Structure formats: structure tokens, C-alpha cells
């Protein structure tokens, strides 16, 4: 399936103290995009624009083939949205919320909602104000999933969850992924979670998209190369070096363009490759952000 679920082209939005700067990204149907950024990087603004809740100053947005925000109501019929700052009505029960949402979604799956109730250990007759934070997140996720959305947009849904609740939420997301037609846009600053469920990764920093790639490609291309450079030799020039740490004799190079040829290149220049270390997504994200910030100070 290669139909585009999301297409953003040069999307900008200016606020007094923040500028979302020309975001362009595409997400095809069935993909899971992990959208990583620090607090205030522009993740929520991007998502609000995607949902049609904020109008971009320039650029175009299409979600499930619908221009946004013009056709947001039609698009939202196929979107499940859960946000960290989304709350349900405290005075109403979960059952009331389920009926309310079901009344607006023709594809509401009652049986699946009941299954999720059991799986999340939630009681339909309980009022929302009596639920813990973890239960509220699971309730919101239930309401989003049971409407059978083609696109699931999750804005830091696991923030503030205890490890057990986080595992349950992620577990359910993993099971949703088995439905290959389901597309997920997952925003988080928890890189470990993103790494677990995503097949594509986007980094956003200070309102700019600084990376958008397949997860495996990203993890394969970023490496820390530990060298031993003999006295009198110069540091070999290897492609995509982001950072040089360590000492002059024992440098550690972080590269974003690693390939097997890098090792032979170093050895040809007289350096000894002591090790090539894989990097976690978090290390890649931090290195990427820091190098960009050094190049473009705020």
C-alpha cells in the first residue's frame, strides 16, 4: 500500500515566540511514523495542523486525501486522536463517553470496545473523575481505537504513565500494528518507545524538521567510530562526521553516513579502528539536535 495518508508541504505557522518553519513530510498508508522532538520543538503544533485545529500560515496539508483544515470533519471520521493534554468529562462515565463517540462514528466497533475494556481493566460504569491518569489515557485510547480509524495520531500519549500502564498502552499499539492498513503518527520525546513501534522516524527541533528517514536506515547510518591515530598522522576525513570527541590520539567520531567503506578508509590513512558502535535512537537524536544547534544557534 503506497497511498499517502499524510502529506505536508512547506507548512509554516508563526506565533509570537515560536515559528514552525516549512515542514514537509509524507507518510504512506500502513506506516508508523515516530515524531521525536524536545518539549516545545513543534510536535503539538504540527499535530494540531494535521488535525485541522490550527490553520497553517502557508503551505498545504492533506490528510487521507482531504485538504486541511477545509475538510477536517470528513478527515476526522477516519482519524483516532489521543493527546497527552486531552481530558474526558470528569462527571460522566466511560460508558457515556463510549455512547457519545459511537453516535458520531458509523464504524464504531462495540465488540472491540468491550474487548479493550477488559484488556485495559476498565469499568464502563466508572466516572472519569474516579480514574487514575493511566486509566484515563487507556480510556482515551479505547475511544480512539474502537472507532476503527485508518489513521491514529498520538501526541505523547504515554507521558506521565507508570511503567505498567505504559507497557499496556504500547502493547495495545503493537497489536494495532498487526492491522497493516492502519497508519500511526506517534509523537513522543521518549525515543525508546518510538524505536519500539515505528518504521519511520522524524526529528523536529525548534520548529524545523531535521531528519525524516526509515528507522533501520537511520540506525544503520549513525555510528560511533573509535580510532587510534598514530602520532604524526592526521585524523582521517570520513563522511558525515557530526562530532569528534575523545583525545587527539584516541578520537571518537560520530558519523551520520557510516558504511563499511569508512573502516577501510580509516585504515588506509594509517588509523586503527578500535571499534564501531551502534547508537540508540536517543543518542542519534541528541547528536543530531546538538550539531544543528551548533550550526544554527537560536
Amino acid at each position, binding site marked *: 500500500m503506497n497511498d499517502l495518508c499524510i502529506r505536508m508541504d512547506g507548512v509554516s505557522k508563526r506565533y509570537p515566540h515560536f515559528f514552525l518553519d516549512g515542514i514537509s513530510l509524507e507518510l504512506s498508508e500502513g506506516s508508523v511514523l515516530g515524531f521525536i522532538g524536545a518539549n516545545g520543538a513543534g510536535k503539538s503544533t504540527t499535530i*494540531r495542523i494535521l*488535525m*485541522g*485545529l*490550527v*490553520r497553517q500560515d502557508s503551505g498545504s496539508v492533506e490528510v487521507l486525501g482531504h485538504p486541511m*483544515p*477545509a*475538510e*477536517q*470533519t*470528513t478527515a*476526522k*471520521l477516519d*482519524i483516532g*486522536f*489521543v*493527546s497527552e*493534554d*486531552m*481530558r*474526558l*468529562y*470528569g*462527571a*460522566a462515565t466511560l460508558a*457515556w463517553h463510549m455512547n*457519545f*463517540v459511537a*453516535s*458520531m*462514528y458509523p464504524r464504531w466497533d462495540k465488540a472491540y470496545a468491550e474487548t479493550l475494556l477488559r484488556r485495559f481493566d476498565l469499568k464502563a460504569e466508572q466516572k472519569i473523575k474516579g480514574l487514575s491518569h493511566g486509566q484515563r489515557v487507556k480510556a*482515551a485510547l479505547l475511544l*480512539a481505537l474502537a472507532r476503527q480509524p485508518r489513521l491514529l495520531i498520538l501526541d505523547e500519549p504515554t507521558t506521565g504513565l507508570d511503567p505498567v500502564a505504559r507497557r499496556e498502552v504500547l502493547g495495545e499499539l503493537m497489536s494495532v500494528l498487526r492491522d497493516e492498513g492502519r497508519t500511526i503518527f506517534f509523537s513522543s520525546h521518549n525515543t525508546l518507545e518510538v524505536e519500539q513501534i515505528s518504521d519511520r522516524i522524524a526529528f523536529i527541533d525548534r520548529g524545523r524538521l531535521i531528519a525524516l528517514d526509515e528507522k533501520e536506515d537511520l540506525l544503520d547510518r549513525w555510528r560511533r567510530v573509535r580510532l587510534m591515530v598514530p602520532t604524526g598522522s592526521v585524523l582521517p576525513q570520513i563522511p558525515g562526521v557530526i562530532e569528534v570527541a575523545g583525545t587527539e590520539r584516541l578520537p571518537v567520531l560520530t558519523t551520520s553516513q557510516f558504511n563499511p567503506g569508512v573502516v577501510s578508509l580509516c585504515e588506509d590513512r594509517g588509523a586503527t579502528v578500535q571499534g564501531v558502535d551502534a547508537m540508540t535512537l536517543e543518542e542519534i537524536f541528541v547528536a543530531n539536535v546538538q550539531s544543528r544547534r551548533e550550526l544554527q544557534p537560536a
Partner: protein
Amino acid sequence: MNRQRINYAVVRHLILKDWYLNRGVILGSLPVGLGALALVLTGKQVTFLLCIILLCMVIVGVGAQLAMVTTVNERKEQTLAFVMSLPVSWREYTAAKILANLIIFLIPWLPLTAGALGVLLLPGATHGLIPFTAIMALEMLITTSLIVAAGIITESQAWTTAGIFLSSLGINVLGYVFAHLPGISAYMFGMQVRWTATAWTVLIAELLTVPLILGMTFYIQSRKTDFL
């Protein structure tokens, strides 16, 4: 921002949601208001004045509480994100908020206004007060419309509270002004109902003000770019 047609089924669901979440306050206000009307029947002047004040407080209070809960609290308590995640456009949201506040407000307003007019129609009552009572009842509808508009447009507790304060002040000031208009004051305490041109003019102006305020609310909302 959104050229799609209004989905009235969605608007109805949103109105029913606000009714469900606020039904306790609305239904609870009815016995208080009707109790105040019953006390008016005792015939004592001090009781009459106190009960009329209580009645006004109940009606204005219900409108203010409703507007605050359905608009300002929706943002403050972050339930707006939930509502706007549903297939709802700003037009449907605004239409639902205006209609919900108006319809739910009418639930106590209509019987209490009818009750007040009914009491004045009883034998021995000061029938001349009926036009002024009708004018003041509509004034309360305007007050509620203003508070609703402030709530929807600003979504701010501070601005809506300011709106409540100014509207309540406006009721007293306008009540004083209307009560001193020659076409109203001359017949107010008579035993006959006199629908003078002045009374009609004020009533019609009030009736037109309500849709004007609500229409302006819709227009200002349409110029917003951010709904969350």
C-alpha cells in the same frame, strides 16, 4: 476555514452532551425559582421585592453558570481537545455552543418568566407591571447571550467573569432607565396593562439584540485560525 456544510446531527449530539453534563444545575434551579414565585403570592411588599431579586439571580446565575461551564471550562479542563478530535468543525462547535446555551437557558427562563407574568395577571396584582416584567425578562436573555458570546469568543475565565459582571450591572442600569421612560413609568403601577409604543420599541430592540449578539459571535469565530 471550513467550507463543509454543517452536519446538524453532530450539532444535536453536542447540544445533548451539554444538556447531559449540565442537567443537574438547570433542573435544580427550577424549584428555587418557582419557590421564589410562590413566595411572591404572600402579597407582602418586602417579600415581593426579595423574591423578585432572587428570581433574577436564579435566571442570571443559571445563564452565567451554563456559559462558564460549557465554554470556558471546556478549554480550562482540556476537554476541548477531546471534542475537537471528533468529526466536528468550528462552525458545528460554535453553532452547538450557541444553541445549547440558548435552549438549555430557556428551560428555566420560559417557565419562570411565564410564572412571573402569570402572578402579575392574578386578580388584585399590579397588572401594569407586565410590560416592564417582559422587558426585564428579555434583558436577562440578552445578558445570557452576552455572557455566552464572551465565553465562546474568549474562552477566558477572566473575560467571561468580566462579561458576567458588566451584564449584571447592565441589567440594573437598563432596568432603571427603562423604568423611567415616560411610556413605561406612567403606567407601570396601574391596574391596567398598557402596551405603549415605547414598551414595544424596547421589546423589539431587545428581541433583535439577541440574534445580533449571537450572529456576531459566529462571525468572530469564523475569523479565528486556531481552535486548540
